[in-house]
Each structure stands twice: as structure tokens, then as C-alpha cells.
């Protein structure tokens, strides 16, 4: 793992971008539209970031952290897909779509990770609340600082593991060329997915009822 420090560097940047979700902000840097191109710059392939970020933003335009629900993690999907696709110099549209198709299920994994992290937060907060009054102010400061560090570290570890593991699989897959019909099919997907995304966005703007705006809050709720 130490032979290729690229995934560590990428994971650290990915962790920093992901802090925007709950750590500090939210400034919307974690939205695929911003995270994709930014991470593409980090990886040296802006085109990959623009294509993947744009598609994810459109398809999951309605994803919002409403109430106590934890939404599907579109930031993780974008960052992982951009990372894997960028491993190939001058990545083709077909390979970008392949990387994206591989990254999409991991949005649920990050969602679950976030849910468990928040449970751990609950334990930490109980401890924090138990401190004597004289130390409360200091505990709050340390709690927030610790919370930020803990969020960043868990994101970096998760991203590093998936970037490394996925990267190994990806490099193995690249040694076997795609059958022509799959290659053409994935290129078609790169043309059709933005259209589907525009349809999703149109539906969102056509909907007047606010309650209907969050049908895809498929994430984890308090159990």
C-alpha cells in the first residue's frame, strides 16, 4: 500500500471535501457539481470530474438531508468514481461510466458508515454532558475539535480502503479490454444519463408539493 501514495493523498482530499456534509458548513463543496471538477483537478483529469460530477448532480438532484434522515452519499459516489476513472490516462467515456456504475452502490455503504458514526457521536455527547459545569465550555470546544478530527479520519480511512481496493480491481479490469458492444453501450449511457438527469431535475421543479420533493430519501433513519 505504501508503494502507491496516490490513494492516500486522494483520500485525504476526499476526506476534506466530505467534511462539508456535516463537519463544517455546509458550503456545498460536497455537491457533485463542485466536488467532481475539484477532485478532477486534484487527480489531474478535469474532464472526468466534469462528466461524472454533472451526471451525479442531475440524477440525484433531489437528495437532501431532511430531518434525522441520512441521505444516499452522492459525494462519496462522485469522489470514488472520479478517482478510479482517473487512474487511466485519457479515460474514455465508457470507462468513466464503468467507474461510476461501480461507485454508485457504495453511496449506501457511506450512508451506513455515517449512521454508525452518528451513533458513536451519541455516546460521545453523553460523556460530554456529564462533565462538571466548570469544564463544560472547554469540553464543548474539545468536543467540536474532536468531532471534526474524527469525521475527517473516518472518511480518510474509508476512502483510502476503497480507493486502494477498488484501484487494484480497476487495474485488473483494465488489462482485459471491454467487448465492443459493452464499450458502445457504456458510451451510449454517457449520452443518455445526462438526459435522464435533466428529466429528474425537470420533475423536481415541476413538483409543487414540498413533501413530494424528498421521495428519494432512501437513507437510514433513526432506529
Amino acid at each position, binding site marked *: 500500500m505504501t508503494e502507491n501514495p496516490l490513494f492516500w493523498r486522494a483520500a485525504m482530499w476526499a476526506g476534506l471535501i466530505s467534511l462539508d456534509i*456535516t463537519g*463544517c*458548513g455546509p*458550503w456545498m463543496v460536497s*455537491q457533485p*457539481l*463542485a466536488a467532481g*471538477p475539484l477532485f*478532477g*483537478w486534484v487527480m489531474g483529469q478535469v474532464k472526468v*470530474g*466534469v462528466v461524472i*460530477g*454533472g451526471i451525479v448532480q442531475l*440524477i440525484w*438532484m*433531489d437528495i437532501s438531508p*431532511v*430531518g*434525522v434522515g441520512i441521505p*444516499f452519499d452522492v459525494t462519496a459516489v462522485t469522489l470514488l468514481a472520479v478517482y478510479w476513472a482517473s487512474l487511466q490516462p485519457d479515460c474514455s467515456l465508457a470507462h468513466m*461510466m464503468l467507474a461510476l*456504475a461501480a461507485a454508485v452502490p457504495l453511496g449506501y455503504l457511506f450512508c451506513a458508515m455515517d449512521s454508525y458514526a*452518528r*451513533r458513536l*457521536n*451519541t455516546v*460521545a*455527547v453523553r460523556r460530554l454532558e456529564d462533565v462538571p*459545569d466548570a469544564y*463544560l465550555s472547554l469540553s*464543548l*470546544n474539545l468536543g*467540536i475539535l474532536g*468531532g*471534526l478530527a474524527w469525521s475527517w479520519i473516518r472518511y480518510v480511512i474509508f476512502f483510502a480502503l476503497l480507493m486502494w481496493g477498488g484501484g487494484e480491481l480497476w487495474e485488473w479490469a483494465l488489462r482485459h479490454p471491454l467487448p465492443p*458492444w*459493452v464499450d*458502445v*453501450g*457504456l458510451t*451510449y449511457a454517457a*449520452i*443518455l444519463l*445526462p*438526459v*435522464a438527469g*435533466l*428529466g*429528474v*431535475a*425537470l*420533475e*423536481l*421543479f415541476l413538483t*409543487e408539493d414540498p413533501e413530494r*420533493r424528498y*421521495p*428519494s430519501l*432512501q437513507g437510514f433513519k433513526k432506529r
Partner: protein
Amino acid sequence: MNPFVALCHTYARSFFLQTLWNFERLQNVGFAFSMAPLLGQLDHSKTAFRKLLRRQLLFFNTHPYFAPIVMGVVYAKEKARTGGVEDEDQTLTVLKDSMGGAFGAVGDHVIWGTWRPFAAVVALSTGILVAEPSRSWQVCAQWWVAGFLCMFNAVHLWLRWRGLQKAVQEGPGVVRWVESLHLQGWAAQLRRMGLFLLAVLVLVYLGRSSSSNLLLWMVGVLLGAIVLKRWSLSGFAIFYLVIAVAMALSSFGVR
């Protein structure tokens, strides 16, 4: 600490509202952490300040951009209290909870449901149209990132700062200021403008297609996505469905 500096500190700290988000009391730690500089402005003994700070650790949840308004209201109410500051004011707790709930609903609808998608659509369209002549990915990326973040955060940062300022000055009367913003009306207007921009974007995108066969499928996918979304199908399912359609087109030799 100077009152203005304390206000700035609370404003800066409010960005960490959700850092220790937990399932039991949600944003309580972030709320207490943000409130500390403002509460330090009240002319209380150390013991009273500490008790006051601990009371901020009760359950709290709202939209993060509207939280500074609630913070300002709590501060104004605590400032106006006379005598017995060490005891909990039940009416203030109820006020805080009800304001949190109401602003949470407004924020979800106006900010998450309207302003963010609108800013994203504006940035997407501008980036694609500006980069069209040069076909430069770099230009497109710059417009997407800078355009989206500047546009979205201009409103975000203003709402947080002005809301906090107004709430500190006016206390619970700040709701009149929020009403005067006509946020629901703006949301309706933005949705109409967003629809127009999206329609332009659809025409530009479809106009680029060089194959009439594929154009037909693109229109089909567009209408299909609208219908499927209306039926509450998730983005996940739509994503893989489109990939399956693309694979089918390829294997049937559609060009």
C-alpha cells in the same frame, strides 16, 4: 469581549452546528458551542453562565442556515429576563423547539428543495453555454465550481449573518423579518425560472445529437425519467435502468 466580536464568533461557530450531530439530541452540542460567546455577553456570574450554557444542551434541530436566527432569539430572551436566571424558562424552551421545527420546514423547502437545485441548474447551464465555443472542460469546470459556490453561498452567508443580527436586535419579533422576505413566493418564482433554464438546457443537449435514432431514444429516456421520478423511483434505480437501456441499444445495433 466586544458585542460585535461576540456576534462574529457566534456566526463563525454556527458553521460547526452539525459537527457532533447525534441521534439523541441532534444539534445540541453545536448549538451550545455557538451560543457560548453570545451568552458570555450577559452580565452573569460564572456559575450562572455555566448553568445557562448547560441549558443549551437540550434537544435542538433545525435547518443549519436558520439556526443563527434561533440563537439570536434565545440570546435576546435570556438578556431580557429579570431575576432567577439560573432556573430554566419553560416558555423559552418551547419557543426554541417550535422555532427550530418551523425554520427546519422552511429551510428544507426553500433552501434544499429550491435554492440549491436552482443554483445548480444556473451553474450547469452557464458552464455548458460558456464552454460551448471552445469546448474546454477547464472553462466549464471553472464556471460550475465558482459559479455554483458563489451564487449559492452569497444567499447562504447573508441569511445566516442578517438572521443572527436581526434576531439579536428584535428577539422573537424576528419572525416578522423572515415573513417580509417572502421566501415561499421567491421559491415559486425560482422554480418557474429553473424550469425555463432546464427547458433551454434540454433543447441545447438534444440539439447536439447527430443521430435521429438516438435522438428518439433520448426523448424517450427524458420522458421516462420524469414519469419514473413522479412514481417515486429512486435515483439509484433510474441510473441502472438507463445503463440497461444503453446496453440494450448497443446490443441491438442502434446507431
